[in-house]
């Protein structure tokens, strides 16, 4: 089981394009808020919906929100959500984590991804 998990995590890492974090342009949280409206069929900051909540996302291990049922692919991905890993995932979720249940083509524009990530970072931790 451990070997399988390691192999899957390795496969995910290989699938993630080797884009250095420095490639991410500066993001604007206000613009990111408008882009986030695209996510709101499934996600919100404060509540789990058909997708998990996004408060406290930066720095969190993937698939770690209590009470949300994740795909095995994401559970075994070994990802920690940083600006760089989010940038890669948001660019093409299916390519970054094959088997993810997030059926979304991705945010293709690097500036839009940077803005979205800035908004998510600004959202801060989840209220207790």
């Amino acid at each position, binding site marked *: 089981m451990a070997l399988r998990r390691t192999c899957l995590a390795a496969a995910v890492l290989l699938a993630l394009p080797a884009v250095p974090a420095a490639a991410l342009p500066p993001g604007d949280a206000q613009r990111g808020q408008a882009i986030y*409206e*695209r996510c709101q069929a*499934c996600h919100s900051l404060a509540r789990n919906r058909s997708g998990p909540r996004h408060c406290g996302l930066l720095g969190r291990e993937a698939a770690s929100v209590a009470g949300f049922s994740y795909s095995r692919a994401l559970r075994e991905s070994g990802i920690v959500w940083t600006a760089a890993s989010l940038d890669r995932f948001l660019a093409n979720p*299916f390519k970054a984590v094959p088997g993810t249940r997030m059926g979304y*083509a991705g945010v293709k524009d690097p500036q839009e991804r940077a803005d979205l990530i800035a908004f998510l970072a600004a959202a801060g931790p989840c209220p207790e």
Partner: protein
Amino acid sequence: MRDTITSLPRRSFLTAGARSTLSAGAVLLLAGCGGNKAAMAAAPEDDINILNAALGAEQEAIAAYQLGAESGLLTKPVLDLAVQFQGHHKEHAEVLAKTVRDLGGAAVEPLARYDFPSGDLKSEADVLRFAAGLEKGAVSAYLGAVPLFAERELAKAAASILGDEAMHWAVLRGALGENPVPVAFVS
């Protein structure tokens, strides 16, 4: 088999309404009559995952409209609209669930409880704005799903639902007194 799809009588396709259109497409692809079998074989699990993501959102929308309908905040014309739109989402969910099952997957079930911001809904406008936000999100979600389908007939069916969600969004914006179609492109 693709001829079966293209030989659908054009008149009935254009006049039978969304339910018939979607159902015809769904029935054909569920019966294995889809066009792009090679692509389909490449990623059937992905198609099931995309469909289930859409199904989960549709189930939430059904529950959200139920919340709005039972809120006591809606006037009769708006209530009628909410019930009509909820009916559309029920049709979407029915087709999506059947498609998932026929592709060999397990359709996701509605959540036992949805954590809606009920306390923030204090007026008809609040309910309309809440629903409009869900519909706008749904448009974006289907837009993000359409290019991913391995099976092109599924992409077509998703695009058909996208059109319906966009109409909902526009009508809800209009009911709020906002420009119903504020942009030339959705994203």
